[in-house]
């Protein structure tokens, strides 16, 4: 191995560890939220071990706390997890994993591992980035989940500590970087209106699923506008270019 390659490896490891540590620690917030929403220690840890995709976990415990139907609650969490399929698609091209490795790598296909992997220049660096981020996050996320769940029981009234704000703040932190263009903002605004407006009238967990329809609705309206205006497609593309 050349010295240059060795240096690159350590730089990749450092990047990956940074992301793994920072986000891995937020498992604490999940552990606390899950426990204070009434899930047992075992259930909380099972979620982090088996589901291992933060937004879906927060969504599920929130829906269950509301007393929703388990399948409705799971549906919301599942739809949030669908984005990981598209990460997997990109990663399978970049990592070129042997087929037998893929079932083992799959559990680590999430926001953070994808972000670190995409940022690397070579296949070797990408593989190192994926494995180090995935391993660090998986170990830490599960450890901090356990600590958070145990801690929540010790703390008692978690609301007094403001810990019930950790869940929505996590969603906001994941959402905010996605609001890059007018399309994303329109979808988010419509989803908020649907999610809050339907809450009092529909069964628990259902309003979130209806709010998901904001995505196809906005795309549909946009598609029609594009068809109405002559040359609309070209002007829209140039606007997308400036927004990013």
């Amino acid at each position, binding site marked *: 191995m050349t010295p240059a390659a060795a240096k690159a490896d350590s730089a990749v490891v450092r990047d990956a560890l940074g992301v793994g540590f920072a986000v891995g620690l937020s498992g604490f917030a999940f552990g606390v939220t899950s426990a204070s929403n009434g899930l047992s220690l075992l259930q909380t840890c099972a979620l982090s071990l*088996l589901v291992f995709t933060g937004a879906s976990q927060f969504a599920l415990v929130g829906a269950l706390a509301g007393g929703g139907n388990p399948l409705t609650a799971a549906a919301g969490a599942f739809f949030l*997890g669908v984005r990981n*399929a598209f990460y*997997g698609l990109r990663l399978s091209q970049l990592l070129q994993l042997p087929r037998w490795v*893929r079932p083992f790598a799959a559990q680590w296909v999430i926001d953070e591992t994808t972000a670190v992997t995409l940022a690397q220049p070579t296949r070797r660096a990408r593989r190192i980035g994926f494995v180090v981020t995935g391993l660090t996050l998986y170990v830490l996320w599960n450890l901090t989940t356990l600590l958070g769940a145990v801690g929540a029981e010790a703390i008692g009234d978690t609301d007094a500590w403001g810990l*019930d*704000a950790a869940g929505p703040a996590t969603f906001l932190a994941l959402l905010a970087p996605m609001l890059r263009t007018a399309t994303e903002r329109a979808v988010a605004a419509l989803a908020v209106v649907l999610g809050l407006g339907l809450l009092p009238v529909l069964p628990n967990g259902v309003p979130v699923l209806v709010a998901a329809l*904001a995505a196809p609705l906005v795309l549909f309206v946009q598609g029609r506008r594009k068809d109405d205006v002559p040359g609309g497609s070209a002007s829209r593309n140039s606007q997308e270019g400036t927004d990013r």
Partner: protein
Amino acid sequence: MNIWIAIAVTAVGCYAVKLLGLLVPVGVLEKPLVKKMAALLPVALLAALTAQQTFAEGQELILDAKAAGLLAAAVAFVLRAPFLLIIGAAVIVTAGVRAIGG
């Protein structure tokens, strides 16, 4: 029991979509409309969930200290604070407002 059913369904479903992405041949999911939907679906879900978990208790709409906490998180994001600090800001401000009696 209901909770375990929800956990099992979520775990199997979430693992299945992760694996699906790694296994399907390139090109199957790479249609423009499918990609756009995949990018916008989490935006809609996260926005609705943020709003509900901040402004609702069960099926009732409420306004409490969490709103101030979320505002603090938004400010932290605008100031480019790291992920953990954004959540920390929400927690601390929510606790602070409650302590004052908000």
